[in-house]
């Protein structure tokens, strides 16, 4: 049975085995490796170099990348807000009517419009509609008698709110363009498909067309011109006017009137407006309460 050097029972033989050239070489290599690593850190450099070579394939994870993600998320959110605002501003700048303005500024969006632009939009409105939105005299006061310098438009679910502001953002006056008002501004919406019975506001105030026009023609010319502000709406040949309804709410300076027409395209009601005082005179004649 062979006995290995390390199995030797004699210490001399064991030492001799231990100090063989091969073992000494191994020890020297190990010592050189250890000392050189200690002194030169080549192991660290090797690992560092290896990791650097695989850097681009590794994921962007960890605190610093999460911070960058959060920054990206935040900036993207802010961009959404500013883009939305820019869009509203662009639409507002291009708007040539309040209808375009209201449809361009969506709920949650807001923008400023200039005083000149507001004036242009206002002057483009038919007189009664403009006066209902804001009386001209009040607008003159706002533009000339106050320190109003900004007009702020904000889209709301119910339509568009317009604020007249001082340099300190104090609201001097607010007007609301409801969806109904906007629809009314829209020429296409001055016609209602149906009859006066379908419109509750005209309940009990409808007069036969003959009676209406007879009473109308008895009014003085200066009253007549103020009775129907936009008679041209009634001129297109849409059918025969059978009845006329007068909006009972007369708190505003203008009164809404509806002309019921029966024609080839079915029944419809065409809306127009009259000055309050002129319509009052007409109603007196219609109801026989004329002085």
């Amino acid at each position, binding site marked *: 049975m062979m006995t290995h050097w390390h199995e030797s029972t004699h210490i001399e033989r064991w030492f001799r085995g231990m100090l063989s050239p091969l073992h000494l070489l191994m020890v020297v290599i190990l010592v050189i490796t250890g000392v050189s690593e200690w002194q030169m850190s080549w192991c*660290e450099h090797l690992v560092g170099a290896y*990791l650097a070579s695989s850097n681009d394939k590794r994921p962007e*994870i960890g605190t610093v*990348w999460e911070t960058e993600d*959060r920054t990206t998320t935040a*900036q993207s959110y*802010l961009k959404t807000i500013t883009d939305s*605002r820019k869009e509203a501003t662009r639409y507002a700048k291009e708007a040539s009517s309040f209808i375009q303005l209201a449809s361009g500024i969506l709920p949650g969006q807001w923008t400023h419009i200039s005083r000149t632009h507001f004036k242009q939009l206002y002057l483009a409105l038919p007189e009664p509609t403009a006066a209902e939105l804001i009386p001209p005299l009040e607008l003159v006061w706002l533009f000339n008698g106050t320190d109003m310098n900004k007009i702020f438009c904000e889209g709301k679910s119910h339509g568009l709110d317009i604020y007249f502001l001082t340099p*300190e953002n104090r609201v001097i006056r607010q007007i609301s363009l409801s969806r109904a008002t906007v629809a009314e501004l829209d020429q296409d919406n001055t016609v209602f498909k149906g009859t006066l019975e379908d419109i509750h506001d005209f309940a009990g105030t409808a007069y036969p067309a003959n009676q209406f026009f007879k009473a109308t023609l008895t009014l003085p010319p200066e009253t007549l011109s103020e009775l129907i502000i936009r008679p041209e709406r009634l001129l297109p040949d849409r059918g025969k006017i059978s009845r006329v309804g007068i909006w009972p709410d007369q708190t505003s300076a203008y009164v809404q009137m509806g002309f019921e027409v029966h024609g080839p395209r079915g029944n419809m009601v065409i809306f127009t407006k009259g000055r309050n005082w002129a319509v009052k005179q007409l109603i007196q004649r219609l109801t026989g309460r004329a002085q």
Partner: protein
Amino acid sequence: MARLIKWISTLFYMGLTAGGCAMLLLFFFIFYGAEQLPRLPHPLARIIETPKTQIYAATGEKLITLGKKEPVPLSRISPHFINAILAVEDHRFMEHSGLSKLRTLKALYITLVQPGRIQGASTITQQLAKNLFFSFKQTYLRKFKELLLALQIEHTFSKEEILHAYVNQIAFGAGAQGVERAARVFFGKPAADLTLGEAALLAGLPQSPSRYNPYRHYDRALKRREVVIHRMVAMGYLTREKADQVLQEKPTLAARHADARTGSYFLDTLITQLIQEYGKDVVFHGGIRVTTTLNTAMQRAARTTVKKGMDELDISLGINKNEKPIPQVALVAIDTGSGAVKALMGGRNYYGSEFNRAISSKRRVGSGFMPFIYYAAMKQQNVHGGTVMTSQRITVPIKEGQILSSENRTGAPHGNMILKQALTLSVDTVTDQLMAKTGVKNVMDIARICGISSPLESADSRGMIAAQVTPKEMAASYATFASGGVHHDPFFIWRVEDAQGHVIYEHLVQGKKVLDAATTFQVVDMMQSVVDNGTAKKVRQEGFSRPAAGKTGTDPHGCDAWFTGFTPGLSTSVWIGYDTPQKINAPSKPTADTMAVSMWTAFMSEALKDDPARPFSIPDTISFKTVDARTGCPPGTGSTSTFTIPLKPGQPLCGDIP
């Protein structure tokens, strides 16, 4: 002998095998772990560039910067700081390759010998790797990954780049990240100008920013600085003599920072509101610019007033410095014309207690509720300040089946008196009668439209008087009286812009007319009398001569002391009490209620010192008459006390309440 040799031999080969296995395992972990490591950004400085959110006062001063990192080149950092941080954190930084072997072996030994304890041996590079990519949870795996990344950082970047990234991102506490920010926060100067003493103090903070926070633990921070300086001596950066000299210096901290850091009561409220509106990412990483309503001069006045007043109260109550609980305080000042919150203190000191009493603490306002009752009665029953009532101990029917036994708590006089005198002297019996005649619901409605939003009791008039509201609500609702009946919701933000200056929010000031101007003026006139001659006459005694109105309020059990008052432009509410309601026993002056009045006076005097005094505007329909305080009739020969009463058209004199 043979056995010994055999044993040594076996041990040698086992060691060799174990070493080999360990090496293999290490290589496996390196190759396997490499895939799990985060990617390193290029250049390293990119990690420092985070957009900063800046918050400004309405008066233009910058209040705070959130998420701000101000990277500065090493050449613009005091060499004292560089030496100090190297000495205390990693003195072999320039020699190692990301790993300090000696320290690692020592740490390994401690970790193995003392189970449950993980000894840190991180080099600056390892700390950088940890701060940039890992959580603060200590695990072996995390430390291994941190080590690997440190090796990569060392291989990829120069020592200067690593040190630059490190000093520009380490946390120093108090919201300061990076040495430039820390130097500005703690010493109000750039990092280039740090003295040796200041630099050493800063270099000691990163080890435990909250433990060594010099604003809270100045002595601890100095002890830590001592360690840093000794390390600098040991490393040869300093001579012993110079070190001794520096140790004698006590760096002065920047005072302004104490209330401008994240966490002043005002900023707390503001940031919470911003987060609710835009989310945390936008607030801390979006780089937005926020203009608040805060007036820094008024805020300074509020802080000074609160400190001085509460110190005086402590002496009066015989409270020691370390005693607990101690009475707390809240102060809110609101611009009556817009609702802008101009100053706010939610307690004595944010660092002592972060609970914001001005916004979140609902406390019994006592007779501070009287103006709403008087307004409701005057509006509904057409009574006025000259209407006569009898102050006496009475029972008042509140509603079917309920009777209130009413008596004066404040020692107010009994007998006939006009309403103006009753409010001036805060007479409970008269108020209770008015309440009974007016109806709880009507009073509640008035309080609501004026700005009280806290739930109100409607069971009986005592329940009503015992309404629990916040100081902010009180200041805002009294502002409605000050502005002639126009209510503005209180707010904190004027404008928010993104980093490019695009406005993403702006506040519109829109008042809502909620009270009748003439009746409001009649109530304000009575509240002016409270300040001139009544329960708050200390305002005048202390020299505040501007037109002012207000009402004191004390909880029936003496737990809460209030004074809410206003000039035409500014409404301020002051509350004093314990967080857990308990009677405030002051054996000597000042008591809590007089202190609330004094603090209001001191604050308003300072806050308005540069504004011209102006009177309350008087509606055109108001006329004035002088009446006897007991009869409500024009004064006769026997009149001893008279009042001037504002009257609306058609209001009769010499009349009892109908």
